[in-house]
């Protein structure tokens, strides 16, 4: 079984998808000979040729719009946007067309496309390279929004996204791209896109997160364990549609919940998780829900980004507080 890091899981899934379905086409800026700025498409041009791996001109609106056109023709475009900070000119197409092509034509035309992009801070990159605006997409009906947080889930969820008959926004946490390797079987098995993943079972507190913050969240659980506190860790993974049931069930058991997000606090996805608890989990809650998030500020340049990303000790403190609450 190959040992791959997260970006390797992405490449493996792309390669498998290109091989198993001739309608799959990878496109984007520098995805060809350069193999993508993060090398996610490395080697694919050599393997599959320039009719399957397309270097586009520099235009994100074009990339998303042409993907809609290609998808309507029965292809399965997998488009790469170089950084989330450059996806905003692709949003019009995702909201006004990709998400609704099936609906507005009552199924006559469909839009099986994937828009992949790296996201998140922590790699000392320039301005506009550190965004976490997943909540922009997670509110749009007709889209699916998926975020892997391990090499294996990158592989399995990306396969699911490509095989899905509807548009999927696939966000890859840059901070985890090369963080570690794990064995991932290239068996072509997709993972489900309608469920959260319970990464660790626990009884005292539920920790909910997604993307790169899964790392700190797991570390938090480890640290709590030393104190004899048993934390359940849930990776939301698919933000749209959100499997709130798994979180609610966990909180039924633990009575306490801390939600960890990298994005600024206000109107982020953590708000949705907390809202579900306020609406459907109130009777289970033994302590206030806590959201640990970045402050409502512009992502700083690299000099301050480490201090912008929510730190383990804030998560720990919140978890201890809710566990102690009575």
């Amino acid at each position, binding site marked *: 079984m190959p040992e791959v890091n997260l970006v390797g899981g992405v490449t493996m899934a792309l390669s498998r998808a290109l091989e198993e379905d001739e309608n799959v086409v990878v496109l984007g800026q520098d995805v060809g000979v350069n193999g993508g700025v993060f090398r996610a498409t490395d080697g694919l041009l050599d393997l599959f040729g320039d009719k399957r791996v397309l270097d586009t*001109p520099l*235009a994100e609106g074009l990339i998303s719009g042409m993907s809609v*056109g290609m998808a309507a*023709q029965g292809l399965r475009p997998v488009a790469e946007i170089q950084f989330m900070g450059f996806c905003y000119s692709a949003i*019009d197409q995702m909201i006004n*067309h990709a998400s609704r092509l099936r609906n507005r034509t009552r199924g*006559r035309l469909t839009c099986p496309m994937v828009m992949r992009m790296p996201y998140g801070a922590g790699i000392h990159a320039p301005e506009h390279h550190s965004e976490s605006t997943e909540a922009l997409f997670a509110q749009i009906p007709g889209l699916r929004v998926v975020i892997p947080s391990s090499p294996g889930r990158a592989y399995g969820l990306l396969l699911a996204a490509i095989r899905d008959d509807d548009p999927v926004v696939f966000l890859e946490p840059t901070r985890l791209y090369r963080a570690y390797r794990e064995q991932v079987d290239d068996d072509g098995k997709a993972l489900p896109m309608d469920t959260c993943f319970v990464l660790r079972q626990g009884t005292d507190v539920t920790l909910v997160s997604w993307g790169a913050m899964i790392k700190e969240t797991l570390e938090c659980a480890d640290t709590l364990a030393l104190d004899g506190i048993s934390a359940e860790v849930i990776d939301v993974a698919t933000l749209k549609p959100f499997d709130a049931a798994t979180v609610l069930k966990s909180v039924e058991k633990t009575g306490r919940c801390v939600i960890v997000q990298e994005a600024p606090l206000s109107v982020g996805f953590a708000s949705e998780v907390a809202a579900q608890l306020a609406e459907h989990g109130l009777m289970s809650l033994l302590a206030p829900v806590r959201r640990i998030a970045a402050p409502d500020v512009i992502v700083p340049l690299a000099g301050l980004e480490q201090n912008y990303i929510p730190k383990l000790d804030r998560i720990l403190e919140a978890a201890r507080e809710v566990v102690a609450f009575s």
Partner: protein
Amino acid sequence: MTAKKTGASVDLSKVHNDPAVATFQIGYRQYLNAEGTLAADLPDFATERDTMVAMYRCAVLTRTFDAKAVALQRTGKLGTFPSSLGQEAVSVAIGAAMSAEDVLLTTYREQGAHFFRGVTLKEVFMFWGGDERGCKTSGPKDDFPFSIPIASHTTHAVGVATAMKLRGQAHVAVCVLGDGATSKGDFYEAINLAGVWQLPVVFVVINNGWAISVPRHKQSSCETLAQKSIAGGFEGEQVDGNDIIAVRTAMDEALAQARAGLGPSLIEALTYRLSDHTTADDASRYRAEDDVSARWKKDPLVRLRNYLVGQDWWGKSDEESLLGECKSRVNEAADAYLDTTPQAAEAKFESLYDDLPEVISAQRQWVK
């Protein structure tokens, strides 16, 4: 903000060591001028009665439909409707030139093209009546529905053309947009790709003089909109959009070029929006009645009918029976539209995803 050059004297003579590393020119095409006389030798199809009459019939049908749609809107039986009054020739010629395997992508005003391709009158009524089923059309199955966000369909067109080219199909994507749409970035991103990948796509800019209240000259200082293609690296030409022969010939050539793998084209069709922008608009706020009445003299339907009559292909009785036929077809379609059982409230949940997520399906009860 005035666009007038306000400058004083300044020496602008430029040293151009090589005065022409690239040169371009934009031509203009017209066969039947407003006076009904021939401005050039006719292409073959113009000598075929059936071809010409078929286009005329569709143009008249479109105008009849148009009047009915406006009337239905005025009586509260249809939503906002964009009339294509005065633009029927270009729209119908586009539809007539295409094959069934080609894919048509338009904005909201191209009823004529869609009718020619088999979309039913009832379907178009339904769409403007506020029913998504109107986009599940009977025309060629890959045609795109009317696109409301201006110019956003131009990138779809190059995506469709990319799929055709990757598959080696000799099909063409035809993208129809307005003069206003040429101000939007999407359009340029699309033509640039079309040029660099030599895609089988034809862009038709229907220059009807207005984008709601903004006249053409306030939209761009370009002498022609055809020249926008130069930014895409391919040729553009201007045609008289009220001359159905000119539009059809330009389309035929552009389609043949694309099918032959010789790349994209851009056609600017000069016409005029005789109506308000939509039924929600009142054009008298921003344009003079005189301008409009002058434009009526260039009515493309009259010009085409005169041509048919001149060829001895068409007479008074043909005209009467056509008008009668169009009227009854339109009325029947309107009745069928008005009689359609409205969508069930739950229809909102249909066709949302291939596989509707359980958590969304559970919300059906909210609209009961």
